[in-house]
């Protein structure tokens, strides 16, 4: 099968002016992906489906990903951005940069006819609040129908051109998008013996006490 770069070059020849770039996957799997602009996404998807060399007739998996706004701190001494978020031991001049957040939809395409894949497509929304629209690929692959509804439900990505965009997993009156990183759960905390750090943090808020960790588990059972 052609590599992501080759597919990009062929797509650029076919759709001049389209925004297509290759997103490199630094991991071992090396499944690189194609980031598409919203304008040509559906035409490109149809081309990928019908092209004789690719014949990506199956859209296997549709996923949403939330990328919240991230503050990236760069020190002037070392130009490499600090992955740990910058521990404050360096007294060098630091520059803060806000990487804008977005919601991303990832499509994994396979070809049943030619038995190859995956080709990974990515679509991004403008931001996480008011520009959360991407074109729907359900008209191209029927498999996207429920999965795009799920991404809409859990992430709040609005798919333009989806035939039936409703919530699928949560109830209709539900207002939040729970898979987003900044989702706050309803506060129905209940004490439980657990070593999970996040749960212990919650316990501190609900049962203000000198030390939660000092409580023996056997004595804190349900009454």
């Amino acid at each position, binding site marked *: 099968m052609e590599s992501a770069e080759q597919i990009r070059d062929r797509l650029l020849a076919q759709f001049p002016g389209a925004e297509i770039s290759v997103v490199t996957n*630094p*991991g071992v*799997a090396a*499944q690189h992906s194609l980031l598409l602009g919203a304008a040509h996404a559906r035409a490109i998807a149809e081309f990928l489906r019908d092209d004789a060399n690719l014949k990506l007739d*199956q859209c*296997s998996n549709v996923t949403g990903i939330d990328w919240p706004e991230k503050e990236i701190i760069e020190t002037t001494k070392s130009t490499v951005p600090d992955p740990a978020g910058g521990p404050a031991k360096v007294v060098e001049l630091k520059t803060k940069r806000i990487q804008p957040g977005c919601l991303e939809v990832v499509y994994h395409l396979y070809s049943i006819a030619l038995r190859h894949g*995956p080709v990974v497509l990515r679509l991004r929304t403008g931001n996480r609040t008011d520009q959360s629209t991407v074109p729907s690929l359900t008209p191209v692959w029927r*498999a996207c129908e429920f999965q795009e509804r799920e991404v809409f439900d859990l992430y709040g990505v609005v798919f333009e051109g989806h035939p039936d965009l409703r919530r699928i997993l*949560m109830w209709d009156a539900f207002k939040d998008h729970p898979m987003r990183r900044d989702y706050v759960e309803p506060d129905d905390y209940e004490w439980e013996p657990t070593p999970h750090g996040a749960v212990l943090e919650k316990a501190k808020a609900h049962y203000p006490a000198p030390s939660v960790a000092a409580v023996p588990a056997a004595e804190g059972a349900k009454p």
Partner: protein
Amino acid sequence: MSVSDLSSLGSPGGSHVRAVHDEFHGDLLEVSMGPHHPSTHGVFRMIVTLDGETIVKLKPVFGYLHRNHEKLGENTSYLGSMPYTDRLDYLSSMTNNWAYALAVEKLAGQPVPERAEYVRVILAELTRLLNHTCLAGFLMQDCGCSGTPLMYAFREREKILDLFESLSGSRMMCNYQRFGGCRVDPSADWLDGAKKLTDGYGAFLDEFETLLTGNEIIMARTQGVGRLSPALAISAGVTGPMLRATGVNYDLRKVDGYGVYPRFDFRVPLGDHGDVYDRYMIRVLEMRESIKILSQALAGIPAGPIMDPKAKLRGFRPKAGEAYGRIEGPKGEIGFFLISDGSPNPYRYRIRPPSFINLTILEDMCLGQTVADAVIILGSVDIVLGEVDR
């Protein structure tokens, strides 16, 4: 009333009859089947619009078992998600384990020793036997044979579960596979037990098929019901036995050749009508192929370590990157899409649920069928709600 009187009522040729019929042709009836219904598989709900007994519209409603697997997976370590995968498709925990282990191994570039690959194949095929047997039992229950086939199926299921339990310590939730191998090494006794079971399974299938396959009532009830065309099946992302029942030759064990499957000699059964009966037959034939794979794997299992000695389980932090790994589960392509940002928890943990995506075309299969057929069409899709809603 004479013949001339009759003809004065309307034009000849039966239009009078149609006019009378139209008076009865009243409103459409909307029926909510589920979320609790004896013949729905778990807490699944369909809003069915009926014209008489014929389905004119069907909208599935999901989410009654939405247990937030993906959110929990993002808040726990890689290894911590392994027990959760058991509870996705709770009839086939071993294949879920494998799919997840495979995705993580892809993400981290982790090799797997040969013995572990063989054990995985053995367990996956046992799971396929278990799942397909239970499915056939449940499907027959949906058709109206209340009890008997399901009793037979669960009798065999218990035998397989005994094997799983003696190996992993749990009947259903095995939590057995690890990144880079398996948790415990099966003993020679265990392998003997698996061999005995494999050798006896063919006889059970013969018995089962004598009861069901040529049964006239079952044929009348299932043949031509819920047809699916290959083109629609491919476009809708249908995988597994559902896809192969339409005649599309696509089995990931052959296509991807993951694990040690290329070493085994087996065929991919294909249907030609894509109806409920074909889906039942495909599962029976796949079980026969599974028996073939099992006896080859049990005969050829090599000695050696069960875990890669360099594999890291606690404090496991794969490098930043992403990977999509998939295997041929009993219900179809089960895949995991993982994004790592270098931390101990996955940044994104996505499950590609086969039975959820296979339900995309439920309405297309049910349109024009009767309401009783909707039940067996749903049964033939083989859904497990833990996986549909996650």
